[in-house]
């Protein structure tokens, strides 16, 4: 694309930028953001993204309810969050401006599609006066760009109807931002050509809009300069930009490959878990069987049936779907068969916030079944970490013959980050260890098979899928006699079995790594400990407080049941323990109950991830309350007063 080479326009180097594309649900903002992200990834930037969209597929056009946004943070250094406040907001209409202007810091740049700022749209967005004219945006640098009219104009002679041409305006916005941040267009142009191969007019309109946006930046002389974000110093290797849901799906395929167990996914479509089904259904070349069941219960039921038959049975769900699966999880615990339940958490209760993130299913995963029904819980911390967490969850399920709950969430599911690809040969091998023959001799000296005769070390029972003569056996949801597996209602046996099942899960603590603590000097007095997708925000908050000279340690839990064996000792090493969570304090409750440590809970449930700034403020507040006070040279600027946390709630 020689016509988009750069002129002598001045370019400024910057270390990072946060851009937010916002428009109507039908405006293609997710697509624009995603393509910008891909171009940046190919340039070698570190990045993190945050798609933020409504539950309605197409809310009424032009309304606040219909605003869809995609935030991307690109950087020349290691970053862990999609950024707090955008440096640049692209607003395709008044509603997109109104919905997002509140999160901007003074001095931010706003680029609006001025064509959409007419009376009807202003009214629909609830503006009484035109914000572009009434001075209300004076704290920002505002660029008014006629995106719709230029997009329509450039496709006029291509035979595209104006109404259709207008739909390409997201590519105009992408072209403009690509110019502003010196991203080449080649990758996106190639993508458009492939994606719209069968629809020549659409392809042409999109390509023209993309280039027109780029040329506009170059020639309109609105912008003083463009900017460049250099590649980040990432560890050598091959990278892809990956979402949590894709990493989960690939983790399942990897687990199937590394265990030689055929993969069976039984599931029911639900936001935001469905993309795992979509991704897996594309990869039948791995022998993957995907089953879209009649309901959530049938999804997990079929997965359990597949496990009984010797496959890797998996179910995926979100929100209310996990409630529906509870009874089948209890059966799997009693049957002691491997099964993976992937819960991509979203805001609840009930239908709640289908497209918004939350981490409020931890206690449900722990306790959401009748009877004493423990199971291992594994949580992913970043989008790419979903791959590793999935493999680990499968390892535990297979080795201990137990259902395992893997917790992801809406933020991880749709967010992206660069992932350094592992060497396949380095991935763990998972041994199904199927039973191969009788394991017991009866009183008459005959070989027989006892389905509940346990491995002394792991307490796991044999996995004997149908097919081998001499191993025929019957299992079920009724209490069983230890060893033989025969139905047994005896109280003493029930107590024995209940304690055995608990001991089996508790014993996993010796089979997982110790707590991952980041406290290199070992002299920190405060520990910030979290789980799941708060990892990035906690890391950023801890780094900021360290930059102020404070000594703060960070730990992040991948295993939530059982906890790492050393966790109690780790917690005891610190004078204060802060537990940030996107719920009302569920991990805090578990830590207090388990270790009698009076942790400080820091929570928010706004459907969005924590911001680094609020994490920093919460840590500073705790330092303050702890009497640590400012370190020399740090006036604790920006630290909130205890009764006014910047965002989220601290409860002691």
């Amino acid at each position, binding site marked *: 694309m020689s016509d988009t080479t750069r002129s002598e326009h001045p370019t400024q180097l910057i270390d990072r930028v946060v851009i937010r594309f916002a428009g109507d649900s039908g405006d293609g903002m997710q697509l624009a953001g995603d393509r910008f992200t891909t171009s940046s990834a190919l340039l070698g930037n570190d990045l993190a993204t945050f798609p933020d969209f409504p539950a309605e597929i197409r809310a009424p056009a032009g309304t606040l309810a219909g605003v869809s946004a995609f935030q991307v943070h690109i950087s020349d250094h290691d970053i862990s969050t999609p950024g707090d406040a955008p440096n640049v907001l692209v607003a395709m209409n008044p509603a997109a401006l109104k919905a997002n202007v509140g999160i901007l810091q003074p001095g931010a740049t706003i680029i609006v599609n001025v064509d959409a700022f007419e009376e009807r749209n202003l009214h629909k967005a609830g503006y009484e006066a035109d914000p572009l004219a009434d001075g209300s945006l004076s704290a920002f640098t505002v660029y008014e760009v006629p995106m719709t009219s230029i997009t329509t104009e450039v496709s006029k002679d291509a035979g595209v109807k104006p109404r259709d041409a207008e739909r390409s305006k997201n590519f105009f916005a992408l072209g403009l931002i690509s110019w502003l941040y010196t991203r080449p267009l080649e990758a996106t142009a190639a993508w458009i050509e492939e994606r719209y191969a069968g629809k020549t007019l659409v392809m042409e309109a999109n390509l023209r809009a993309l280039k027109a946006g780029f040329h506009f930046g170059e020639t309109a002389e609105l912008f003083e300069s463009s900017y460049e974000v250099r590649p980040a110093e990432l560890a050598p290797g*091959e990278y892809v930009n990956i979402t949590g849901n894709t990493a989960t799906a*690939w983790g399942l395929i990897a687990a199937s490959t590394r265990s030689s167990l055929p993969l069976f996914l*039984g599931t029911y479509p639900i936001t935001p878990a469905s993309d795992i089904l979509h991704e897996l259904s594309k990869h039948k070349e791995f022998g993957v069987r995907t089953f879209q069941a009649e309901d959530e219960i*049938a999804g997990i039921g079929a997965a359990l049936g597949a496990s009984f038959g010797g496959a890797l049975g998996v179910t995926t769900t979100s929100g209310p779907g996990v409630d529906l699966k509870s009874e089948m999880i209890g059966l799997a615990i009693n049957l002691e068969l491997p099964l993976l339940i992937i819960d991509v958490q979203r805001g609840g209760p009930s239908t709640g916030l289908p497209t918004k993130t939350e981490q409020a299913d931890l206690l449900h995963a722990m306790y959401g079944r009748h009877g004493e029904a423990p199971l291992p819980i594994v949580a992913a911390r970043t989008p790419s970490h979903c791959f590793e967490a999935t493999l680990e969850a499968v390892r535990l399920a297979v080795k201990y013959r137990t259902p395992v709950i893997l917790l992801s969430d809406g933020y991880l599911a749709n967010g992206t980050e660069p992932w350094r*690809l592992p060497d396949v040969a380095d991935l763990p091998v998972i041994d199904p260890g199927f039973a191969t023959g009788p394991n017991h001799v009866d009183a008459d000296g005959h070989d027989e098979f006892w389905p509940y005769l346990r491995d002394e070390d792991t307490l796991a029972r044999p996995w004997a899928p149908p*097919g081998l003569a001499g191993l025929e056996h019957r299992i079920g949801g009724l209490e069983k006699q230890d060893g033989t597996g025969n139905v047994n209602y005896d109280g003493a046996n029930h107590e024995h079995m209940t304690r055995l099942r608990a001991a089996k899960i508790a014993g996993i603590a010796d089979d997982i790594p110790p707590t991952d603590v980041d406290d290199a000097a070992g002299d920190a007095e405060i520990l910030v400990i979290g789980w799941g997708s708060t990892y990035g925000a906690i890391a950023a908050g801890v780094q900021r407080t360290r930059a102020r000279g404070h000594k703060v340690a960070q730990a992040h839990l991948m295993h939530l049941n059982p906890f790492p064996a050393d966790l109690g000792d780790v917690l005891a090493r610190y004078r204060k323990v802060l537990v940030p969570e996107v719920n009302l304090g569920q991990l805090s409750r578990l830590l207090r109950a388990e270790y009698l440590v009076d942790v400080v809970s820091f929570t928010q449930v706004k459907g969005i991830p924590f911001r680094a700034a609020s994490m920093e403020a919460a840590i500073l507040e705790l330092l303050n309350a702890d009497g640590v006070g400012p370190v020399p040279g740090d006036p604790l600027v920006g630290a909130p007063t205890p009764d006014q946390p910047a965002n989220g709630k601290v409860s002691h």
Partner: protein
Amino acid sequence: MTDLAQAPIDGGDGTPVPVPLTTRKDWSSDQEVRWCPGCGDYSILAAVQMLMPELGVSRERTVFLSGIGCAARFPYYMNTYGLHSIHGRAPAIATGLATTRPDLDVWVVTGDGDSLSIGGNHLIHALRRNVNITILLFNNQIYGLTKGQYSPTSEVAKVTKSTPFGSLEQPFNPLSLALGAEAGFVARTHDMDRKHMMETFRRAHQHRGASFVEIYQNCNVFNDGAFEAITGKEHRSDMLIPLVHGEPIRFGAEGEHGVVMRSDGSLDVVDVAEVGEAALLVHDEHRDNPGLAFQLSRLSRGPYEPTPVGIFRDVDRPEYGAEMARQVERVIERKGPGDLGALLRSGSSWTVE
């Protein structure tokens, strides 16, 4: 991939060996059968255990699955692989098993509460998908395990523990339901006729895809005699209408009754002497359109009128597990077997030196 379907049944060289001859005893587990004395379930269990040696199948490739209810204890008594699961969900569990293990014979044993009430959704979808399973539905028109509440097949005005003034609900007709759910094999038998049960089960097992068999089963404790008016020895010839493929539909000690189709398309029971043999409806199990089978399923309003038994429908449809396997094979043919390293690099990747 580990393919359990290829697991050695012969000492490991991969060539199948003839299934050893077995007897009923070989198919009986060592567990004491614990249904109430006199329960119809005993005769169904006996029929199945006696049939198995005749089917030429092996115990290790046979699985009995069940949900909850009296009938659901069935797997414990079969010396095969077995899974006694949770209420109503056996067809769902069976779907996962049968689609991943096409080498297995999967039987689902269920009752009128288990699969027509709590598990209704799974039943109709297993039938619609045509999963390769054989469903035996023990219909006793009552909840037995919970000690006597009305069920979805209980007649209107049924007085039970939970309906002391009579139930208000219209019952399901299980065969109509199965036919409406696109079942390819639909049959009815009863617990008083072992030979008829064995023959019906044999045909159900033979059918590739989902087979649905309703078994009128007497609960002698909570609903004794529910089917006595049609299955009692002295009533059978006049009250049971045997369906025989290719034969005129007729019954009675001398074959004196028969079924005709009226000019408005409805079915009626008539005396053969009045209409002549040629006017009788000829039964066709393999008719593609389920309409006539549906009408036959509704010929009797309840077990107090002449009631057809036997195979209502036996039609081949694509079987779900086989189709799923074929799709996997086709994709492998087209794309080659999956390569994990290539998958991970299938997006836009870049290299940092």
